[in-house]
């Protein structure tokens, strides 16, 4: 029979749906199929994965209808071939705690002059499109980082829930790299960093 498959990761990108991925069992060359089974806290019934396709191979996608929060999912994957089958260890998931958003978008960098003629940088950004922050269901916090292009050390700044920020005391003549990422308040994982953006501070 095949070896035990392992569930690698489960993630929700917007606190409305989620996906789990597994590492297929090594099958000794025999054709092996995988079945994801789950039960939900408070229910005896065992369900099968509702959608094996949307998220690609070795995955199960749970749409809104199949996604509940504050509820523990007990998930297993069974590998089967002509020699028999083997089941993964159970994976306990509460979708509340596995939210990892996409990076922020629409990032703008604008140089302005203060009353004392000193340059400062105004950054603005938007939440990732999938994330519904307007209804209050998902609340995102942001962190930005920047460093001189040739520099090694990033300066990381947590900005809470705001979607704009002013940066002072930047070195004239330097070219800076800026990135932003986000995370749900309380639980979940930081998104990937947004693509690098560059800004040069004038010397005059």
């Amino acid at each position, binding site marked *: 029979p095949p070896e035990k498959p392992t569930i690698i990761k489960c993630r929700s990108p917007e606190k409305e749906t989620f996906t789990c991925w597994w590492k297929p069992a090594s099958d000794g060359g025999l054709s092996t199929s995988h079945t994801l089974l789950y039960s939900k806290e408070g229910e005896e019934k065992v369900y099968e994965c509702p959608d094996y396709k949307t998220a690609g191979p070795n995955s199960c996608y749970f749409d809104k209808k199949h996604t*509940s929060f*504050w509820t523990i999912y007990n998930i297993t994957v069974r590998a089967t071939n002509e020699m028999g089958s083997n089941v993964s260890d159970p994976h*306990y998931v509460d979708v509340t705690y596995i939210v990892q958003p996409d990076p922020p978008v629409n990032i703008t960098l604008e140089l302005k002059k203060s009353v004392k003629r000193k340059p400062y940088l105004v950054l603005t950004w938007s939440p990732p499109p999938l994330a519904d922050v*307007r*209804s*209050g*269901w998902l*609340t995102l916090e942001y962190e930005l980082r920047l460093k001189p292009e040739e520099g090694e050390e990033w300066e990381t700044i947590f900005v809470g829930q705001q979607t704009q920020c002013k940066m002072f005391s930047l070195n004239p003549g330097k070219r800076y790299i800026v990135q932003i990422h986000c995370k749900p308040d*309380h639980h979940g994982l930081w998104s990937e960093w947004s693509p690098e953006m560059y800004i040069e501070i004038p010397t005059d």
Partner: protein
Amino acid sequence: LPICHNGYINCQLSLEELFDRAVKVSHHMHFLSSEMFHEFEDRYAQGRGFIAKAVNSCHTASLTTPEDKEQAQQIHHEDLLNLILGVLRSWNDPLIHLASEVHRIKEAPETILWKAVEIEEQNKRLLEGMEKIVGRVHSGEVRNDIHTPWDGLPSLQLADEDSRLFAFYNLLHCLRRDSHKIDNYLKVLKCRLIYNNNC
């Protein structure tokens, strides 16, 4: 005309100000609950498989609360407010005992002790604030009937350490979950009632 503080109208806090304060308290209360759960889990629950046993064992499980965004958006705001009140009331009793019983845990760190006391305080404060909000928003009478009893004190005092630790683990797991629900629902209500779903 009496001089009112900032945020007051006719010397009454505006609904927006009431919600702002309630969300601040609920956010902090959940932060503390989550921290306390993690501290306890790291210190007392490693490798004991408590999560598998903690399934479907919260004393508030009988309260039908929204479990996804659609349910949270479709429920009438008065019903959601009453549910929040019901969950808060249901935690009054266990939090009183948690604060006193946590001292009996072997080498219970100071950080868990003061958090239990602080959370009990926050729960009371939030309950008072919510009753003001409900009084302001409710057309009818404020419902006091939503509440689930807690009978978990004996299990916090069990002689067998593993059983007693699981009882604490389960209570802290449920507190983390319910305080997160309260915080999330309040943020949804605030965006709906104050910002017309345009937070």
